[in-house]
Each structure stands twice: as C-alpha cells, then as structure tokens.
C-alpha cells in the first residue's frame, strides 16, 4: 500500500506492506535510526516518537496508520543550525543518561509531557514517564533533566 508520511517536516511517499510497523518503516525505509527498538511489546518506550504532536510507541503503530500524518523523531528536535532542543540541552547539562539507549524515547516522551503539562511537579514527571524504562536505572538525573527543561 502506498503511504505518504511527513517526518520532521519532509514528506516521504512509498510502498509498504500493511504489517510494517511504524518504527520499522522509520528505521529501515526512511533510514532514521535515532528511534530505537527496545522491548518491541509497547512496554519500554525506547521507540517513542511524536505522532501529530503526541508521544506514541512506534512499535505498536502500523506504518499505514500513520499515512497522511505528521511525525517528529529525535532527529527532528534540534534546530537546523544544530542548536539542541531545550530538552536535549537539559539532558546534556544534567547528565540525564548513562548508556543512552532509552534517551531518544525519554526525550520524546518528556517533550510530549511538557506540552500537556508545562509546569509539572517531580511526581508528575515520574508518573508522566511511567511508559519509559531506563535499564541503567538512571531515573534520578532523567527526572532532574525534565524539571530543568521545565524551568525548575
């Protein structure tokens, strides 16, 4: 089936099998490998990206469901001149990562969280990131990073 998906402002048109997962489409067809595959069962959140501005787990969305929709991946957050998005900068400043595998998903979930709740408490950040697992268990600095990005 032919689909047309706008990813980070660029429209990609191509033929996919209906069973193609969105994460597989973005990594293997479009070649954007910043979005990671972790558990592949919608538990870990490593594959989080924005579909029409909201965080979703792209291992549990079909590429055909994204036909005609707008997607932002981790590659689309920074400005064209390379200036990091404030959330990316906050993760760097607060060392909000250890191995880094969960980081793209964490950043995408965190930016979606701040869009819905721009002024979260620490508890709200922790609950808001419940769908993202860090197997280094580096949650403390991740939460600090999100609070810093929220201006706290």
């Amino acid at each position: 089936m032919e689909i047309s998906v706008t990813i980070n402002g660029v429209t990609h048109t191509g033929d996919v099998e209906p069973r193609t997962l969105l994460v597989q489409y973005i990594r293997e067809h479009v070649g954007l490998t910043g979005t990671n595959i972790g558990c592949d069962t919608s538990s870990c959140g490593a594959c989080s990206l924005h579909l029409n501005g909201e965080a979703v787990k792209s291992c549990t969305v079909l590429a055909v469901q994204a036909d005609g929709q707008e997607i932002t991946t981790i590659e689309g957050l920074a400005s064209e001149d390379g200036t990091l998005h404030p959330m990316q900068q906050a993760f760097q400043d607060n060392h909000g990562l250890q191995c880094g595998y969960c980081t793209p998903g964490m950043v995408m979930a965190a930016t979606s969280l701040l869009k819905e709740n721009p002024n979260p408490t620490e508890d709200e950040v922790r609950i808001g990131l419940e769908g993202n697992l860090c197997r280094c268990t580096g949650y403390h600095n991740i939460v600090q990073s999100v609070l810093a990005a929220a201006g706290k």
Partner: protein
Amino acid sequence: MIPAAFEYVRAGSADEAISLIAEHGDEAKFLAGGHSLLPLMKLRLAQPTVLVDIGRVTDLSYIRDAGDHVAIGALTRHMDIENSDLLQAEVPLLAHAAHHVGDPQVRHRGTLGGTIAHADPASDLPATTLALGATYVAQGPNGTREIAAGDFYQGFLTSALAADEMLTEIRVPKMQGAGWSFQKFNRRAQDWAIVGVAAWRRNGDSGVALVNMGDTPVLASSVTSALSGGASIEDAAEQAAAEASPQADLNASVEYRTHLAKVLVKRALTEASS
C-alpha cells in the same frame, strides 16, 4: 516481532466499517487504536486476514452531556477521557480510572470502545464501566442495539458483540455526587492490575466491580447486597470474591488474589464513603 500478513482497508464512517466487515467475513477485525490487537498479532495470538481500520472515524470520538448520562463515542481515546472536564465533573470515577490505563503513550492511542470490545478482564475500563452500570451501543447491518454492561462480558476476551457488529457509543450514568474509588494493585507503574476495584456509593446505593478476578470483569453483587442490607464495610468486603473465579499466574496465586480483592474492596468502600 512483525504480525502475519493481512489485508488493510480503511473505513471513513461506521456504516462503511460495518459493510467492510460484512464483506470480509469472520477473519476480519476492526482496528481502532490498536493497543490491544496489535500486540496480540505480533505474538501471533491473533491472525486476522483483514484489518478494517476505524481509527479515522472521527465522528465517533466525542464526550457529550446527554441528560442523565454522558455519551462517549467508541473511538474516544483514554487521554481524552482522563482530561474531559465533563467526565471529571459528572463521572469522576471513569476519568480517574482512565488515567491508570497503561502509560501516556498508550493513552494517546488506545480507545474506550477498543478496550471494551477487547473484553480483557485485566483491563481497567471494562470493570469501571460495569461498576457504573453503563450501557453499550452496538451497530450492525440491521441497525443499532443497546447492551447492558452486565450482559456484555461473556468469557475471556469474549463479548456479546456479533462478528458483524461494531461498538459505537458508551453511555455512562452521571454519578450525581456519589463517593467513589479506584484501587489498582500492581508491581510496575504501567502494568495491568494484579487486582483492581472500581466502586461508588450514594446513600443506600452502590456499585463495585473487580479487575482481573476471573475470565470477565466481575460485578461484586454480594458486596453491594451486603451494604444495602446494612452490613459494615468490613463485613461487606469479606464478600468481595463471592462472584469471582480468579486464576493463578506469575504475579499471584488464587488465594493471594482473593485476599487482595477483600483488602482492595475494603479500601475502595472506605474511600468512597469518606
């Protein structure tokens, strides 16, 4: 994990979706948010040959004041239920329970109609709407019919919906000042409940339903009968598992689940009475 191959068709309206399902027969499935169906398909526990995507039937995404009840379109997402001012005011138990479904990413995709049609006894909102005495509306080739939540759940992942019917609306009675509580016991934040309880109380009236205590969501009628007969919360909660037939799994034995149900019903009734 990639699902087995299937044909994909997209419906623009409920009428079109129902005629597409009729055309493709028993092996076709509706795809709404996909957060119950796609995981099953990736594990090959479900292998429909045709998916009828109803995710863009946007006229079935609404939350409306309908007098004595709130009418919710089947394609309304959990996140929209959680954030609805109308539901927070009129059916706060449902808005609150919706916040406990999965995680934000799941709630951005999953729909109320999808979780009810999937009929998973471990899901939060089938039991919550059961406790609230909701009515579900199904549309098929011969028109629409109403199904009481109490008649809907027939077995594990099995509902009263016919293969050619689609859930279109969920009608939830307004709570009119009732006290309420939603108790969800789990080990990891985003998990299904090991046991959950949705409960409300108003004067002599009450409703209690259990999550993950059998093949279907369970209406704890013995608890509500005991309460209307004047029993204390402690005594009523002892009846929590009277209608349940819980199973053992990695998380809990039958005895543990039965114990949890009593503890959580007691907590729920205490909170709903305060």
